[in-house]
């Protein structure tokens, strides 16, 4: 005689997640929110530490073009901090970088998407990815010792033949360590991101439209002009803005090649300039007390600037990518 084992109790049918799942979901959600927390904390701490500077300098901190802390004989410290000159420099250098870097990136992306044979394509994709992995100090070193002599020569040519355009003019033909050189180095540094975003967007071009263009007898270029550009142009603008964000925040490479002087310089070929990021590390070494706070405030400005540019760029890229699906 054997006793029948008792039948297992039927499991409760429910949509309520088990404890393990609730822990899992809670942990993952919590960690997911951490990135938001970090981003908020960055803004908060920099603003907090820079608060004193914002209060004492007011709007002058953004518009002012001087950066000096003078201690007089009786010990009173007169501060005059303004990042205006450096902000103008940041925009100037980044503009040079975009003007040179974006066309090259778009051409490369076009070449990779529509022209290159498979082997060359794979090779070039690796090359572009490798560019993104190079440390910025390597670009700085190479830019200083290899690129600068060449760029100085190009600057000489521009000065000689295009001096009548105001930005190519210079008080003296002195082209070493100019914003133009820094812009060239940055142009190379933003190529990977702009290329990969453009490539991603070009690859999303609806295939039926491409084939329709070919079926109507378009050449490859005709197809690109009629289909790819109208579809992808706003996405490429987004990619260029991501590049702009990188160019705004680049520090070490600019510091290495640029002669940083606290003055507004709109002559891109002339040998001095600056950007906010590189000025922070230039002044950091000797900064004490209120100057350190002012530098943290400058960091806050840089953070807000790049964050806005990046968010806008990402929104644009995302919209374009979606429109292809």
């Amino acid at each position: 005689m054997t006793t029948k084992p008792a039948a297992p109790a039927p499991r409760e049918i429910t949509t309520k997640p088990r404890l393990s799942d609730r822990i899992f979901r809670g942990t993952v959600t919590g960690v997911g929110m951490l990135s938001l927390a970090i981003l908020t904390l960055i803004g908060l701490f920099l603003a907090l530490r820079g608060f004193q500077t914002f209060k004492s300098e007011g709007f002058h901190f953004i518009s002012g073009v001087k950066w000096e802390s003078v201690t007089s004989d009786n010990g009173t410290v007169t501060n005059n901090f303004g990042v205006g000159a450096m902000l103008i420099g940041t925009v100037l250098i980044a503009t040079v970088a975009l003007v040179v870097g974006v066309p090259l990136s778009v051409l490369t992306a076009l070449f990779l998407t529509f022209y290159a044979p498979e082997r060359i394509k794979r090779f070039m994709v690796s090359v572009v990815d490798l560019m993104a992995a190079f440390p910025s100090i390597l670009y700085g070193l190479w830019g200083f010792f290899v690129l600068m002599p060449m760029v100085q020569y190009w600057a000489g040519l521009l000065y000689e033949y295009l001096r009548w355009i105001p930005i190519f003019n210079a008080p003296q033909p002195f082209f070493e360590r100019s914003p133009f050189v820094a812009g060239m180095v940055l142009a190379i540094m933003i190529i990977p991101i702009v290329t990969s975003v453009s490539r991603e967007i070009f690859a999303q071009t609806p295939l039926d439209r491409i084939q329709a263009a070919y079926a109507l007898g378009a050449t490859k270029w005709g197809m690109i002009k009629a289909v790819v550009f109208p579809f992808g142009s706003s996405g490429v603008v987004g990619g260029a803005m991501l590049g702009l964000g990188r160019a705004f925040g680049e520090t070490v490479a600019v510091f290495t090649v640029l002669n940083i002087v606290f003055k507004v310089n709109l002559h891109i070929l002339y040998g001095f300039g600056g950007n906010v990021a590189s000025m922070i590390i230039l002044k950091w070494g000797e900064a004490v007390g209120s100057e350190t706070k002012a530098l943290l405030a400058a960091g806050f400005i840089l953070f807000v600037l790049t964050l806005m540019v990046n968010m806008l760029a990402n929104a644009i890229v995302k919209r374009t990518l979606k429109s292809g699906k």
Partner: protein
Amino acid sequence: MALETQVEIKPQRPWQSTPRELAPTFYLLVASVIASWAIVAVTPMKGKLAYAFLFFVFGTASLSINKGRKLGRAAAVDSIASSVAMTGAFLVFLPVASILFTTIQKGVAGLHWSLFTQTMFTASYSDPISKGGLLHALVGTLYLIFISVVVSVPMGILTALYLTEIKGPGANFIQFIVQAMSGVPSVVAGLFIFASLIVATPIKASAIAGALALSILMIPTVTRTAQEVLLLVPMDLREAGQALGATQWRTVATIVVPAARNGLITATILGVARIAGETAPLLFTIGGSDKLNWNPFKDYQGALPFYVWKGLLLGTPESIQRAWTGILVLLILVLVLFILARTLGGRKMKSK
């Protein structure tokens, strides 16, 4: 017998150009080389720039005219466009080649064995390169990488899981935030750690402070790559897990993550490659010691980028030689990581 008389069919590729069709292109390019050489020799235009520019102009124009004569105006324009696109890609390739070439050429001169066994504690940066080494910097960089990995990889992967598995109400927003975070300038990450930790807490400039700054830069990279590979895991696998009665936690831990293992390792490696050479955040956070420091939680630490930075700033021939050698070591590290990520990533694609 019938088997032996089989005829092997040669695959035909009618879309490929025959040598005869390619010949004019070749002749025209040779002619362009000769023409640009002749013009440089005769006119006051001089230098490599002139050669390159003239060759581009002649090559593009002659190929375009050749096409246009046979096939009309549209083909001529098309030919110009393809020449320009190809030139653009080549111009992007040039700096990479130049960077690799220069770094190897200048860096190798300073490589010697004691570089990896000595520190700069007793040597000065302007001493000849045979004196002193970068052991302290190498140890520092390895510490920085290790701590950053420990901090950012779990965070990055869990965030990616939130975005792909939970798809909570905030997923779109978090995605947006992660993308915004990947654009945070490295100098800001350093300033933040300084303003939050070094000023206000007992954590002073050390490897851990540096690694936390680097983690801010590494998390978005890991998250985005991990998210991409997790999206590649087929939905069927998840559904199979659920159908067998597994909870979501079991499905993710025993099916989804193992299926994406190689991709997640690639994500980690790409993250490390992103931060290994970062210099700016370290300037505020690690102190840049020249002494070997085995304790990552206390005292100033050195790092390879910092070593390069110091050598570069000093500006004597010896210190610049040090900078080149330091950057060569760093570049080798980055290249190894890059190739590792490539091979792993490639394998993942094949098994799919």
